[in-house]
């Protein structure tokens, strides 16, 4: 006889847990609802009427900013105290000083919404730090 029955012994607890889990199957998946909020809100900007306050954020640096949405639909973007890197960017002449270290960012092609303008300025800041 090649096989000798040595009797039975209890399986280790860890193995039992694995089997129990397999028998139970997966719990029903819980669908997580995605937040559908504008970029400006997702990035911490606060809105008060037609004024937005927050910061332009990049992996390198963040700058305080505020935005005014005019009745005409135009949106003005301001940035506080732009750094040496931004002042060295080819578009620095598009930053118009408005006093107290606040600068208006002149848009040749105006964005249709506040979020797109923030993204544009953040992209410019990133470029300034990459060059």
């Amino acid at each position, binding site marked *: 006889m090649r096989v000798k029955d040595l009797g039975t012994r209890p399986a280790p607890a860890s193995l039992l847990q694995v089997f129990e889990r397999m028998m139970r199957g997966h719990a029903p998946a819980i669908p997580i609802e*995605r*937040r*559908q*909020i*504008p*970029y400006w*809100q*997702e990035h911490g900007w606060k809105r008060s009427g037609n004024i937005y306050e927050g910061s332009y*954020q*990049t*992996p390198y640096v963040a700058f305080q900013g505020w935005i005014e949405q005019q009745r005409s639909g135009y949106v003005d973007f301001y940035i506080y105290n732009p750094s040496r890197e931004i002042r060295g960017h*080819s*578009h620095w*002449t*598009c930053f118009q000083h408005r006093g107290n270290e606040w600068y208006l*960012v*002149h*848009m*040749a*092609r*105006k*964005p*249709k*919404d*506040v*979020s*797109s*303008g*923030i*993204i*544009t*300025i*953040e*992209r*410019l800041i*990133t470029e300034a730090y990459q060059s």
Partner: protein
Amino acid sequence: MKKLSVVVAGTGQIRDIEIQPGTTAGDVLHQLNLSDYLLSKGPNEPFFAATESIYDKVKDGEKIFASTKAEVGLTVCA
């Protein structure tokens, strides 16, 4: 096939799409009726050109952004 979530920056609306190899940024924008928009992987990434195939540049399940065209300066300043 890859699944993507296109976030419309202005509204935060998320549009779920499925793309095949060779799909361009322009195809996506056209299909979503976002003709005056540009696609990018985020504010720190360059925009995809309209004729650029995006299939190999995105991961399955990735979130990408659609924002309206805007430019600092240029015609007046630069």
